[in-house]
């Protein structure tokens, strides 16, 4: 037990690691909280009151009442859409009178019952979403009963089909097994209740990846430090230095990974509970429609528990296997590589292998699959074990337990017996690639940055955030945006004197389009007239949308004309194209701030590490301990930052290239409507280059500032906190928009778009760029002076 405590102390004495754990947990929880916000569309209090009201009624009556109210409110909404005109009312009557007749009433009488909701749109929409949710749940309750009762008949029908009828086939066996599984569960009691929170948890398999990365960090601290410093052999000569020490290290890693999982997944359950709610957690899991196919007797509370326990199990198995790999392979680099390959394989198999693949066992007996509680309980599947269907969850538990125990046994066994595989590369290769223990300052600094200061984890996090920023799928435009974009394409290019006549031409076209339609003289039957009226109304709506799109462009044109009157040859470029490239608001600044806060973990300790360990003076006394060490560290930081900056910027570039191709890069910067008031001459191409360059130089300034602060603060944790505060304060000046101060701040390089937006001169960008370059150089020179003297 004491040994376990000592191992934990080792972890707790690493503030950088602890801060990283805290930071990653916070980022993942914020991400989760944001991702579930779209599920929060039902008013919970209103839902609860309606649900209680319905519960008091007999089942059939409640269902009928819900349907009636839903239809009533729907008709009120449609009545508003059709408008007060005579034509609209005729159409409305024609289309919807049947619905009212279902309830034995005329349309007017039926709607009058819901008059209270005519004027209050917000209240009506709230009630509509509550009624829809409840109706769905009530219908589900009825369907579930039917589903369970029909199962034997279904199984018989399926087995009778030629291709499923072979008794020894997987399909036939699977059908029979499914029937047994469902029947053994019986008919679960379905109780409708608020379930958005239940649906939101249990499906996050991305977070487990970060648990794995953090566990990897912990493994490096627990296993490699002693191995590298050569203390391991000494420790193994002590009385409790073999089996007990191995067991303590294994247990510490296991507890670590379990704790990380508890923080993240437990946090997600708490957030889902607070933001969305779970309803009554004692009701059966099958009460939530997503879990109809679950054939386990489990309550909602039980499922919530499993959504934490399953990832914990997955993390524990991973930790156990990792402990074995670190002990067996000895070298942390090789062990980490093996772990990365293992995780990668697991992920690929989980993500891309089909559920009914011949080797679907590899998909289900998998670390990622194990933590995906939602899929495990909502989808009924069997593993195809040489043609025999086997339940997924028990197999996962069993294989997980075997791997956990095997990992534990082999870790302890190999450690206590000193068994291991020390992979050595040929001498010539080793000379070239030797990193650890190298006397070359530059290589040593890289090792310190990427391994010692967890730079590799920071890069992994940047990669993940970058991936999240990329826009997947197709670009979808609303109808209004599409019309605006298509019209805009017609006048794209330089604005000339003829542009005004284009608007007149388009207006005339629209007037002509609107003039068609039916007249009183046209001989039509009643049905034809109704259809024609409907078509005419649709047409009118379409023309109105076109007019609005045209008006939007005209307003933009008027603005651009003001720039043209100043002698600037502005071009028309649609806002659909420019908005995502030249960002509005503070999203770009906030993303940049987040990047620097992440970079603090690895960049801030560059100089303070030596000071903290008292090695600073010793380093100074060595031959290359002054200038070479200084420049090597700066170059290392610069390369690291460049890599991070690339990962930060690449997603934006990817999105631009993929969706918002802009061909008019030679247009003046004033062609972007947001910068129409800017003064001076500059093309969009020039501006973009200066903007990226400005951002990069500003960022370099921040990195150098961290280095200087690390010299001043002398302690890793203090440097990190002080750096984070100083950088955040600098960004805050620009985020809050203090006009005078903002151009003085170092973060101004990231905020040059704001300067143009406020009508500043384009030349200011160059001034800011040089100012920031100057500050950056000054910071470095000052630090060099302090460091070398």
């Amino acid at each position, binding site marked *: 037990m004491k040994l376990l405590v000592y191992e934990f102390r080792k972890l707790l004495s690493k503030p950088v690691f602890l801060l990283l754990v805290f930071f990653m947990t916070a980022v993942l929880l914020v991400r989760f909280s944001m991702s579930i916000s779209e599920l929060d569309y039902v008013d919970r209090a209103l839902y609860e009151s309606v649900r209680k009201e319905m519960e008091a009624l007999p089942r059939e009556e409640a269902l009928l009442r819900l349907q009636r109210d839903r239809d009533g409110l729907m008709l009120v909404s449609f009545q508003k859409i059709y408008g007060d005109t005579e034509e609209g009312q005729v159409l409305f009557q024609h289309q919807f009178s049947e619905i009212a007749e279902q309830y034995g009433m005329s349309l007017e009488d039926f709607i009058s019952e819901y008059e209270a909701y005519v004027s209050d749109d917000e209240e009506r929409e709230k009630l509509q979403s509550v009624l829809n949710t409840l109706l769905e749940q009530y219908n589900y309750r009825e369907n579930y009963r039917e589903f369970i009762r029909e199962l034997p008949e279904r199984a018989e029908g399926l087995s009778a089909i030629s291709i499923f009828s072979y008794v020894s086939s997987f399909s036939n066996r699977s059908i029979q097994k499914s029937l047994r599984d469902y029947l053994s569960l019986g008919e679960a009691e379905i109780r409708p209740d608020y379930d958005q929170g239940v649906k939101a948890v249990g499906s996050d398999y991305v977070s487990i990846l970060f648990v794995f990365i953090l566990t990897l960090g912990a493994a490096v601290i627990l296993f490699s430090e002693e191995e590298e410093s050569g203390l391991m052999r000494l420790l193994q000569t002590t009385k409790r230095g073999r089996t007990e020490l191995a067991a303590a290290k294994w247990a510490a890693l296991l507890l670590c990974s379990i704790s990380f999982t508890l923080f993240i997944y437990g946090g997600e359950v708490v957030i889902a509970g607070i933001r969305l709610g779970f309803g009554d957690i004692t009701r059966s899991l099958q009460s939530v429609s997503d879990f109809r196919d679950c054939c386990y007797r489990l309550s909602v509370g039980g499922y919530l528990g499993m959504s934490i326990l399953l990832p914990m199990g997955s993390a524990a198995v991973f930790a156990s296997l990792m402990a074995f790999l670190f002990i067996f392979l000895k070298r942390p680099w090789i062990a980490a590589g093996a772990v990365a390959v293992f995780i990668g394989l697991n992920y690929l198999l989980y993500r891309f292998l089909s*559920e009914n*693949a011949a080797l679907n066992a590899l998909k289900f007996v998998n670390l990622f699959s194990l933590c995906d509680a939602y899929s495990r309980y909502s989808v009924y599947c069997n593993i195809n074990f040489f043609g025999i269907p086997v339940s997924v969850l028990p197999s996962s538990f069993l294989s997980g337990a075997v791997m956990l125990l095997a990992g534990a046994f082999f870790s302890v066994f190999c450690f206590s017996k000193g068994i291991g595989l020390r992979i050595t590369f040929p001498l010539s290769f080793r000379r070239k690639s030797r990193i650890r223990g190298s006397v070359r300052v530059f290589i040593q600094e890289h090792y310190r940055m990427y391994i010692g200061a967890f730079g590799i984890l920071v890069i992994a996090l940047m990669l993940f955030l970058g991936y999240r920023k990329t826009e997947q799928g197709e670009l979808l435009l609303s109808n209004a945006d599409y019309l605006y974009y298509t019209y805009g394409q017609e006048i794209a290019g330089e604005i000339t004197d003829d542009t005004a006549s284009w608007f007149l031409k388009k207006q005339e076209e629209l007037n002509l389009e609107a003039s068609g339609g039916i007249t009183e003289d046209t001989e039509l039957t009643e049905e034809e007239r109704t259809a024609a009226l409907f078509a005419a109304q649709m047409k009118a709506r379409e023309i109105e949308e076109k007019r609005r799109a045209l008006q939007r462009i005209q307003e933009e044109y008027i603005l651009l004309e003001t720039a043209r009157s100043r002698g600037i040859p502005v071009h028309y470029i649609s806002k659909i194209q420019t908005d995502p490239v030249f960002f509005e608001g503070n999203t770009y600044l906030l993303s940049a701030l987040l990047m620097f806060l992440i970079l603090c973990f690895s960049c801030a300790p560059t100089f303070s590490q030596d000071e903290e360990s008292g090695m600073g003076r010793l380093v100074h006394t060595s031959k290359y301990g002054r200038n070479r060490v200084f420049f090597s560290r700066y170059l290392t930081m610069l390369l690291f930052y460049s890599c991070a900056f690339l990962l930060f910027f690449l997603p934006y570039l990817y999105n631009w*290239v993929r969706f918002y191709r802009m061909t008019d890069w030679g247009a003046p910067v004033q062609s972007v409507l947001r910068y129409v008031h800017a003064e001076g001459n500059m093309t969009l191409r020039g501006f973009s280059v200066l903007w990226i360059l400005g951002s990069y130089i500003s960022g370099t300034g921040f990195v150098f500032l961290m280095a200087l602060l690390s010299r001043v603060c002398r302690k890793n944790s203090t440097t990190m906190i002080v750096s984070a505060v100083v950088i955040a304060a600098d960004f805050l000046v620009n985020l809050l928009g203090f006009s005078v101060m903002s151009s003085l701040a170092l973060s101004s390089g990231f905020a040059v778009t704001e300067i143009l937006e406020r009508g500043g001169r384009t030349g200011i960008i160059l001034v800011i760029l040089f100012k920031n370059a100057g500050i950056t150089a000054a910071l470095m020179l000052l630090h060099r002076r302090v460091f070398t003297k």
Partner: protein
Amino acid sequence: MKRATIILICICIILQQLLSSCGYRPEILSESDDISDFNTTTVSWFSSRRPVVVTEDGLYYIMEGWLYFADLNTYKVHPLCSKLGCNHEKEEFSYKCDAFVGTDPRSIGSFLELRGNKLYVSCMNAEMNHCQLVEMKEDGSARKVLIEDISNIDINSMMFHRGYFYYTTNEQKENGKFVQQIRRTPIKKIGESSEVLVEVDRSEKEFFSVLPFLPLNDSLFFTEQAPGEDTGADLFQYDFIKKEKKVLAESEAVNIYGAVDGHLILLGKEGKHIEYSPETGEFEEVVWLNKLHEEHLDWKCQAGCINEDFALMFIVTNTDGKLSLNPDLVVVNREGNALCELVSSAHAWTSPQVLSIRGEKYLVIYGPNFGSNNTLDLYKVRDLMQGKAEPERIQSN
């Protein structure tokens, strides 16, 4: 000692590899190698083949993105999904149903083939963003993705022929250019490596440039349309032996319907039907077919089938020349005489196909009300020729 052991193991591995390659014989590909070669007896309108395959027990077919099995023993249609709890719902969670293979309602880009006791199906992946070639057992189990990303632009964009699998891919090159490629891969090595036969530029906006391709004898025939142009496409021939591509006709062909008796049947300019003989290299007008069109100008051909043995043609009649919601389907002979009227679905997407089922030639076509009612109608060709139109209907449970 250790080093010697490692070296010995390495030598053994290298020797084994060398010896095994010595024993490798290049694949000799012949017509007989390919048991499910392209059907050269029937040409169906709109596109050459429907995704329908026949086994002793029944028919597999794809409709509206779902893979069905029509059981000839029970005369019932069922989605190829053995999950007891699955409702095979079309609206939501379709990916949970094993029978769901894609979204294209017309099944135009769907590929279905049976080789041995394995089905080969084009399926959309779980994210629904690309198409895969999947191999599975006849009961739909034991699935294996053979090719990860293929283009399913047309029914003829995938094909087995003489021991090879032919398919198209859409790619974006490093320079940002969009290209479309026709590739082939030996059937025994599907998913391992492929050879690019043809590569054409395609405009960014357009979905495809290469229209249906057709491998025939030692050549691959395909049409190619210049990006952004509405004019007729050019007809190309790619010679597998000489590895050459040559133009057969410029701006002449619109679509390759298929091949009958070793001749290509093409839809040319202004709706004229052309026949191309690869042996003589000559184009000929399909006189009887064009005559039928001229004589029956009010007949809008939407679903059709030419069969060399039976000389059948199915025409959707329409009085105003527009596609009707309930058009009629009529069987006519080459002389233009109507033989009988069918009650099955006459939608443009239901191109009929003549298949041999349990030793009897049948015309297979979707049942009435295509899309809303999943039935398959089987007409004996013998009966049709005698003016009888009594279908054997296989319908859903």
